[in-house]
């Protein structure tokens, strides 16, 4: 059904997948969680609990409308605060704080969801609170709604895990292969998608083998195919994955559906399936904890909203003081300013670094063209960075600044260690604001 297609650019950072053989460990519930209500792309949720309320695991604590995903309590206990806070990730969000009672009682209203139509299915997925768990955090249910006139031809399941260090998706595939395949089957059946392809980087041969075998055992080989994809960062970028598996390019400013694709991370698929099997919404997340400062690196299943400090404690604590702590992988993860930071739904790693914390000094661009060759989307990162720094709106427009997916390949490969990706990020923000301002001016002028 599927074949591999050539993609541009990409880089080969060292893999550091040292935790790949660490099975997921289940941990004792923390005493406290702080759950932000903006763990998805779109509008933050409105809190629907107040201080003093008793909540169970799975109780709805944040709801909204439009582009959003509901948020649920991840431990049982009492709500101790509902307030807007500045998080160490640099974001500002309403946060619900829950003091645990240590019981982890499930919400009594939780039951196995049922559906008979496509719309009901999507509604169930919405209620599950699942978002793009590869890190994108786009509400999954919203993705599943194909706009009028467009339809999904393929479900592409992203099992690439191309970020260095992270092995949580790998563990998900190894430990829950059946669930992943059942999830794929359920989604393509419910959404009437003809074919599904699970793409896995060829540095994970065990996962490829296991999933291929599972597909065979379940007799769904006519619809689901497992593909080994050459290891290259960012093979797991949404647009890159689509290009790799279908040869199609997502048109600028468009969505995967414009290329006929629904793209989901393996763990997202698995969590959707889990919801349909047991009715428990997304309240726990498997996280790879690694880095030279962590005593017991490994994969841990932690409640959403658990403090990074507590997670590190569970992983045996720190053996030395880190100089940089990342939420996510080295290529796209976020450096946090303090360990008092809640784990978010889409987080898949916590890395505590001393040895790798300091990056080389920036030197002048030597126009070597490595960044151009590394960009998987065919952009000109060096010129985009200059245009961003100069606030050159026209150049940003012409060079397609909004196409950039922040993969960081350009910065990684740059021998002058230019902060290209950083500059482009700022350029995007500037561009977005300016375009909006111009649009408003135009409206005002009419």
């Amino acid at each position, binding site marked *: 059904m599927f074949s591999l297609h050539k993609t541009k650019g990409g880089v080969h*950072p060292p893999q550091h997948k040292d935790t790949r053989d660490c099975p997921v460990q289940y941990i004792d519930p923390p005493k406290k969680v702080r759950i932000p209500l903006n763990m998805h792309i779109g509008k933050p949720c409105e809190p629907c609990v107040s201080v003093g309320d008793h909540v169970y695991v799975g109780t709805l604590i944040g709801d909204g409308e439009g582009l959003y995903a509901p948020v649920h309590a991840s431990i049982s206990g009492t709500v101790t605060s509902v307030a807007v806070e500045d998080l160490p990730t*640099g974001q500002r969000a309403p946060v619900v704080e829950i003091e645990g009672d240590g019981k982890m009682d499930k919400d009594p209203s939780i039951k196995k969801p049922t559906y008979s139509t496509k719309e009901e299915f999507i509604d169930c997925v919405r209620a599950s609170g699942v978002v793009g768990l590869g890190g994108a955090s786009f509400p999954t249910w919203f993705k599943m709604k194909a706009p009028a006139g467009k339809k999904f031809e393929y479900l592409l399941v992203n099992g690439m895990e191309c970020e*260095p260090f992270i092995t949580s998706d790998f563990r998900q595939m190894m430990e829950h292969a059946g669930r992943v395949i059942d999830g794929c089957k359920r989604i393509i059946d419910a959404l009437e998608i003809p074919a599904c392809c699970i793409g896995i980087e060829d540095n994970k041969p065990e996962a490829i083998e296991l999933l291929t075998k599972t597909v065979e055992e379940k007799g769904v080989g006519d619809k689901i195919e497992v593909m080994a994809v050459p290891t290259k960062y960012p093979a797991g970028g949404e*647009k890159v994955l689509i*290009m790799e598996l279908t040869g199609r*390019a997502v*048109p*600028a400013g*468009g969505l995967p559906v414009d290329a006929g694709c629904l793209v989901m991370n393996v763990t997202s698929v698995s969590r959707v399936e889990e919801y349909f099997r047991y009715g428990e919404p997304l309240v726990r997340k498997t996280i790879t904890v690694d880095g030279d400062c962590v005593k017991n690196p490994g994969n841990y299943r932690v409640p959403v909203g658990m403090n990074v400090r507590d997670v590190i404690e569970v992983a045996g604590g720190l053996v030395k*003081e*880190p*100089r*940089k702590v990342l939420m996510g992988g*080295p*290529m*796209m993860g*976020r*450096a*946090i*300013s*303090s*360990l008092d930071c809640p784990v978010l739904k889409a987080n898949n790693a916590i890395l505590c*670094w001393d040895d790798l*914390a*300091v*990056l*080389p000094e920036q*030197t*002048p661009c*030597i*126009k070597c*063209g*490595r960044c*151009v060759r590394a960009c*998987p*989307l*065919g*952009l000109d990162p060096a*010129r985009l960075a200059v245009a961003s720094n100069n606030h050159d*709106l*026209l150049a940003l*427009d*012409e*060079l*397609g600044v*909004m*196409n950039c997916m*922040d993969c960081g*390949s350009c*910065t*990684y*490969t*740059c*021998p*002058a*260690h230019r*902060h290209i*990706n950083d500059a482009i*990020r700022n350029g995007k923000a500037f561009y977005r604001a300016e*375009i909006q301002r111009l649009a408003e001016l135009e409206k005002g002028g009419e």
Partner: protein
Amino acid sequence: MKLIVEGSPHFAGPDSTRKIMGLVCLALLPTVIAATVLYGLAAPLLVLVCIATALVCEHLCCIAMHRESTADDFSAVVTAMLLSMTLPADCPFWAGALGTAFAIVVVKMLFGGIGCNIANPAVAGRVFLMVALPAALGSYPAPEGTPLDAITGATPLAEMAGGAHFDYLQLFLGNHAGALGETCILTLLIGYVFLLVMKVVDAWATLPFIGVVAVMSLITGNDVVAQLLSGGLALGAFFMATDYTTTPTTQKGKIIFGLGCGLITSLIRFFASAPEGVAFSILFMNMLVPLIDKYTAPKPEGGVKRALV
């Protein structure tokens, strides 16, 4: 606990400017050794004088420009080595130093330093010396202890214009009169292949450059092999048409650049009165790089959704 907060990515690749420039210096080393064998101790001394001049000039310029010194990134060394390679071994040291100073101060630093120069400093320095001090560069010493009877002689290109023929092997080994780093094709090739293997340079400009010269020699009835093995072609095509800053960034752009260099070199060699055209051709094509870059810009996947225009 004070944590470093900065934007992603948090990994840096293995390449650095210093490493790249260092590798280029290393790649030029065999040719310096060959020049020492061929032309005696004057050759490496001239190279050293140029390197010292370049480092001092770059450092002083950085001080004058109130910026951190870039003298330690080896780029000035590369410029100095390349420039000295285009000089005859008996070129007075002061002339070598003058050319280097011009290359670094005027061509490189006045334009903003590393990465900002429009022309290749080494090439521009060489052309400057050719124009300003034709006498210092007028004659080329023959290799020591060779059957060539004159101490200084015409270069093969000049002699070929007069109808002389050459032994290809001697040309390949550099056993003839010429600039100290231009004659020994063997060592230049070793250096270039080394850079190719280390992925420092590619062949997108080099091959078209050499190819066009070959085709044009054929068309004009010249000795193709002798043309390819003599003059500054190898040095230029291997080490100057592969410079980052002064050549296009994309594959397509590099091919155009190489074709242009080859064409101009051939025009000068075969139709103008000057026997050598590599330096001029590279310099000329350097000026066209912004234009080439503009028309060979990479195409974004999925196109660009323009909000303006």
